[in-house]
């Protein structure tokens, strides 16, 4: 599974802002730090604002700040804004007469998808911040 670029930008933005100690950051600052397109990042930031994870601060020196609950919001809350968390093309596949091969593969791939979902749902933003702190040392 490869995360889409929008998902990665969403994760960068949420974790950057959640770890900033309440300070706001502009889209340009985040884009520069992670070497990503500011246009693409701006679209992602709007989605995160609509989801309640970020707050847009207007005016001179405006930007974005984290507005979610870091102990409750999880990686899943960010990822599923941008893409389905599943082995694409299988869970939603509904063929009228699935073959033995398709049925067998579906069982294996559903297991993988469920593991992915359980992991993403269990890692909160607060846990990620601790993990980042641990890696920094």
């Amino acid at each position: 599974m490869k995360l889409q670029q929008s998902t990665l930008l969403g994760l960068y933005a949420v974790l950057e802002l959640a770890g900033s100690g309440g300070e706001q950051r502009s889209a340009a600052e985040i884009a520069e730090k992670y070497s990503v397109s500011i246009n693409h990042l701006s679209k992602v930031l709007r989605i995160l604002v609509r989801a309640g994870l970020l707050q847009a601060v207007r005016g001179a020196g405006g930007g974005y700040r984290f507005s979610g609950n870091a102990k409750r919001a999880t990686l899943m809350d960010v990822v599923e804004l941008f893409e389905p968390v599943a082995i694409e093309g299988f869970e939603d596949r509904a063929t009228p007469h699935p073959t033995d091969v398709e049925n067998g593969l579906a069982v294996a791939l559903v297991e993988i998808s469920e593991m992915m979902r359980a992991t993403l749902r269990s890692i909160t933003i607060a846990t990620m911040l601790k993990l980042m702190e641990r890696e920094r040392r």
Partner: protein
Amino acid sequence: MDIHAHPDTSSLDIRRARLSDLPGIRTFDERSNKDDNPHYWQEMFERYGDDLEKQLFLVCEQGSEIVGFIIGEIRDWEFGSPPCGWIFALGVRPDMRLAGVATRLYAAMCEFFLKAGVGKLRTMLARGDIDSHSFFRSQGMMAGPYIQLEKDL
């Protein structure tokens, strides 16, 4: 549950479980409500409630009320692994969640394992038990080298 509520966390005491704590635990432990085994907690107390070298059953008490529990034990060479500490039961009364009860019980259990010379901690969770899964990850636990498999017979 109102996640913005802040339960009273003053005067939380962690201590070994007593037989008289079991009714309090049953009031909020989900296993008790399934009623598969009405003697579950009695048996747990008999196995883990004494002052044992490798087993520990702790409760968190506030005033005279039990607001959380944790049970763990040291298992030697299971799956060929050097002795490690297992936490296999943890519960917090719903109105006391997000108040640090589980964190204090977990810390006390880790201290017990460390004093016994054990440097590895493990647990196993239902995939859908997101609250427990999130809690253990918040304490720094991550997926280990084993995968649990099962089959209907």
